[in-house]
């Protein structure tokens, strides 16, 4: 269920509606500045403070949801 919420965060930050569960944030035009905005939204929603390197290794909604689940 996190996957949908994370996809929504991607869509808002990237200003792009074509985000799917396996869309790579950086391939979709994301950069490190925009990545921080995803991570602040994750911290607000799930209370998990991930760092930039965490996101680099899990740059899709699917992978990020798993990362959050394993960290929480």
């Amino acid at each position: 269920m996190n996957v949908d919420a994370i996809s929504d965060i991607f869509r808002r930050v990237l200003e792009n509606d074509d985000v799917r569960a396996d869309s790579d944030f950086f391939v979709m035009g994301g950069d490190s500045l925009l990545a921080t905005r995803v991570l602040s939204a994750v911290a607000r929603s799930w209370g998990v403070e991930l760092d930039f390197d965490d996101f680099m290794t899990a740059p899709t909604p699917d992978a990020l949801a798993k990362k959050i689940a394993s960290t929480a």
Partner: protein
Amino acid sequence: MSVVVVGAGLAGLTAATDLAARGVEVTVVEARERVGGRVHGVEAAPGSWIDAGAAYLGERHTALTALMAQVGLRTTPTAMTGDSRFALGDDGDGRTRPGRFPPLSAVALGELFDALDELTRAVRADAPWLSADAVRLDATTADEWAREHLRHPDARLFFPLFLGEMMAADPRDVSVLHMGFYLRSGGGVRYLNAFAGGAQEDRVAGGAHRLCELLAGRLGDRVRLGEPVRAVHQDDEGVTVTTTAGSLRARAVVVAVPPSLADAVDHHPALPVPRSGGRTAPGCAVKVHLVYPSPAWRERGLSGWSVNARGPLLSTVDDSPPDGAIGVLTGFVTGRQAHDFARLSPGEQRARAFEQAVRLFPGLPEPTGFHVTDWVNEDYSRGCYAALFGPGDWTRLGPHLVTPHGRVHWAGTETSTEFFGLMEGAIRSGHRVAAEVITTYDRRDEHV
């Protein structure tokens, strides 16, 4: 028709070029012994020029790229490879990291960029004083805003560094409205911040000053140097512009200088609304260039990019010529640090900059050249990148920014709501004012 243009910076030179092309008899009077204003080149080594003032452009800067194409200038990419250095802790020691991302909490930086993004969207770019919440946003400083909106210590640490780099501002000097406007005007936080794909994608090959020199060269003896303007007096038939060297008579005048300098001229009739306000501050930037026999940091896998909390160089960037024949490390001293650094003796400035450079990039030899460009105390710029509008300034001055004062018309990057503070804004203001003058007086000529 005759027009006098005051100021041979990019705005004035663009306006004069457009006017001359339309057959207007134009004279440009410039206070300095050089053209360019806040665009200025320094010769780091024979034939190798570096930008001591405005330097960068991106693909959205369409007026600048068009003007460069007209005079045959090319761009050089700023692309950097290698790791960055960050000295953000109290100890001042650097850490090496890939990319430009500082080793701070990503969540904290996200908090900062979220808040800035929200602010930027709330400001009307074309008329910030008409933004829904303009009065409240114009009543507080960016410093007060940060204390209210940023909770994370890393966000509070990074914010002044970010603002220094983006707009050469101390957060205490600018209103929240001006900060939001500046970021919006430049294309948003992300575009303004980025090198690749952003506002720092390229430099002008050979130096940005070449653009001004080439424009001035085409204008020839219509450009008069070393003639500060003292007075602009209007009467029913025209305008008399008095410089230190004499007086000029014209149908109209284009004043293309920063707001506080425009106010320093004796205007008759007096300006109904000043160009700058009580809280308008100079952009706080000192640019430092350290010249080395080679870009030796590259051999250690470093890009030359660094971000430093303590200064004096708050960030550094590799500005070496494309062939790498010499190494040039450019240091930015901005915000509060700029005032402090400007007060040091040349020897102290040198010692502090050298010491910091070698701490960031171990093994660097003694520089072979050292240049300091102090824009804060430049009499004929009064700050760089641009004037900083403090609390109350936008709501009071904004509506009059481009309104002609009789036969006096206004240009300069501070009159452009598009790309305010950048070369692009200056050029757009020059085109706008030239069209304004031609429309106004051509019509009058028809009917007189």
